[in-house]
């Protein structure tokens, strides 16, 4: 029953890092606007489409590899590493595009509605509406002939449907030693997650902007009195949330399963619910909590559930999301403010006393 090996552990860590990067954005936008943003994962998708296009265009424009087009049309898994600056340009543009889409949503949809006194439910629905518009835009984008020429034909295992996607697994760096192969995207995801933690920590505690952000979230009226442009601070927070989603979008390009092309019949990407789960389990009003929560949900789905397979049979792996949803239900019912709100010192003292009994 070798359910756990190094490779699947790294896969789990990759997924967990991805979720924590996305969860923190949900939390940041919830803290400022008090709305669960259904469009958040779509920011990542927009960013990933743009970044993928940029990689392909740069490779083509500078004729970095003559056989690049051939590789696309044949859809073969030929490894063509590109120079580092191509990836860097794509990463930066994913970061900026993700942030810009978020700011557009804030200024075009949420801010006007809030000014009209829309309730929290109305705001939530409006994020859905924005999500629908983004789906439509991505879908139209994928039908552009200029983009179609760049895409990779992928054949889905279910139903044998061929579709165009901007997935570029083959451009990923692979570190292999013996039977273990670890993909560059896995390492990169963990680096991004760490960078997000450190970056946000430094931003929120060491910079003037961070102090302004915290005060605007804590008490917008008081912040306004002190001469802080709360509106702009919130917009910047949204930019940061979207930009972090853009990082996740950059990872999507090299992922195998998470970047499914948008289609009118299956627009719902599976990951958004897990992202909400991470944000809620960790604590919807806590930035470090949401990072931890996302990581925890990722580990539950991809690490702990496979551990159960010797007991319940290998079929249990398919039900992985049921367990994370269970975690959400338990969190909301018993500690609605999430794991971050728990007074851990007290719990451990109690737990220590109880631990002796059991």
């Amino acid at each position, binding site marked *: 029953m070798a359910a756990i090996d190094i490779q699947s552990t790294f896969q789990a860590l990759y997924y967990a890092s991805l979720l924590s990067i996305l969860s923190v954005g949900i939390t940041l936008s919830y803290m400022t606007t008090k*709305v*669960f943003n259904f469009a958040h994962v779509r920011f990542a998708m927009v960013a990933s489409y743009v970044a993928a296009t940029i990689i392909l265009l740069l490779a083509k424009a500078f004729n970095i590899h003559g056989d690049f087009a051939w590789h696309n049309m044949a859809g073969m898994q030929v490894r063509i590493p590109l120079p580092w600056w191509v990836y860097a340009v794509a990463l930066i543009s994913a970061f900026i595009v993700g942030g810009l889409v978020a700011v557009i949503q804030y200024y075009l*949809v949420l801010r*006007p*509605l809030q000014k*009209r006194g*829309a309730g*929290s*439910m*109305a705001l*939530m*629905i*409006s994020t*859905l*509406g*924005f*999500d*629908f*518009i*983004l*789906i*439509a*835009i991505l*879908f*139209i984008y*994928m*039908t*552009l*002939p*200029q983009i*179609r020429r760049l895409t990779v034909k992928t054949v889905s295992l*279910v*139903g044998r449907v061929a579709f165009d996607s901007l997935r570029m697994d083959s451009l990923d760096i692979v570190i292999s030693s013996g039977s273990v192969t670890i993909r560059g995207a896995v390492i990169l995801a963990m680096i991004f997650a760490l960078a997000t933690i450190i970056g946000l920590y430094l931003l929120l505690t060491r910079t003037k902007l961070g102090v302004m952000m915290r005060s605007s979230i804590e008490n917008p009226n008081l912040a306004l009195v002190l001469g802080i442009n709360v509106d702009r601070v919130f917009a910047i927070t949204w930019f940061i949330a979207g930009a972090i989603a853009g990082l996740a979008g950059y990872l999507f390009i090299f992922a195998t399963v998470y970047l499914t092309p948008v*289609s*009118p019949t*299956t*627009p*719902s990407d599976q990951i958004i*619910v897990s992202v*909400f*789960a991470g944000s*809620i389990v960790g604590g919807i009003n806590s930035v470090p909590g949401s990072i931890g929560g996302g990581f925890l949900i990722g580990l539950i789905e991809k690490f702990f559930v496979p551990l159960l397979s010797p007991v319940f049979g290998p*079929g249990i792996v*398919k*039900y992985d*999301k*049921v367990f994370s*949803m*269970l975690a*959400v*239900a338990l969190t*909301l*019912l018993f500690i*609605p403010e999430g794991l971050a709100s728990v007074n851990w010192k007290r719990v451990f003292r109690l737990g220590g006393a109880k631990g002796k009994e059991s």
Partner: protein
Amino acid sequence: MVNAIVLTEQILSFIGVYTIVTLALNIKAGHTGIPDFGHAMFFGIGGIVVGNFVAHLAAALASHVVPGVTVHGVLAQNTETLNLLNTKYFPTHPGVAIGLLIFAIVVALVLGGIVGWLASLPALRLRGEYLAILLLATAEAVRIFVTYTKQIMGSTPTVGLATPDLFAWAGNSAAAATIFTVIMAIIVYWVFERIHHSPAGRLFRAVRDDEDAAKALGRDVVVVRRDAMIIGSAVAALGGVVYALNPFLGGGAVAAVSIFNRVFWTFWPWALMILGGMASNRGVVAATALVGILLIWPIRVYKVQLAKALGASLLGLDPNSFGNALEYLLLGILIILALALKPEGIIPEPPSKTLDFRKKAEKILKEEKIEL
């Protein structure tokens, strides 16, 4: 070119099923203020009732009549068994088919009610968006569970189960299914109109508007919320039955990916409800009709022509794919515009019809023989 009758049937089926599902959501979210983002979970129950329970029952009844039909075969050889039932059994047994139809409706209402009641248990503790997310997560967990459980949805999640054609005896079964859809929608509308103007409906809205006031007047808020969840969920399951039996909607099969799809059966009803007007049954019907006609007629049927008219081919876009995207563009823009420009909806919530005090007063005055 599309046949005008088929087109009408398509539009009517769409409007019918979305009227049922959106009205069911309206009683929960619009009237009582429960933000149910797990609506698809109740809708899916109706699909399971038809695709699984009714098919099993029909196979049990037909196993002595039609050779080759076995109860075991419903899941093991789903397509073949259902094909035999639909071609050899239902056309000659209208009584059984109608009996099964009533069975499906009753079972769906009861099961939907039970699941709604179970889902209402956390509603006692949570409020607002927390409850919304909890219900969303629950629906997602149910969806995943159903998708991969072979005993419920068959062995291939994307294909699902073929549905019994309970209108096979009617000659044109598609037309019969459409008429059934419309009749169910009218009944559901009538019932919800009655509830709207009944004391129960006023109580729902009282709980939504001011929980403390309702409490102060001696009402058990928890019970009221529970009742709304039970009614709304039961009717949503009925919508699932209607969907599964209508070839224009289900296409002769139910799959977990379609009946538990949160975009189609949670988000779309929400959008239609916002557009029509929260707690406004008439508004919901108007919005459903508007979107149904706009969506089916120009966008789904004439999407290629429409895309060309909008200049898609000038930009070099594939008109077919562009047309598909228009569906989402339309809905997204409608939602945001409705929220920004008409947050109360196309037809705002009508005032409750209460006793006509003037008439009542005149009657009393007449009885007391007092001149005004």
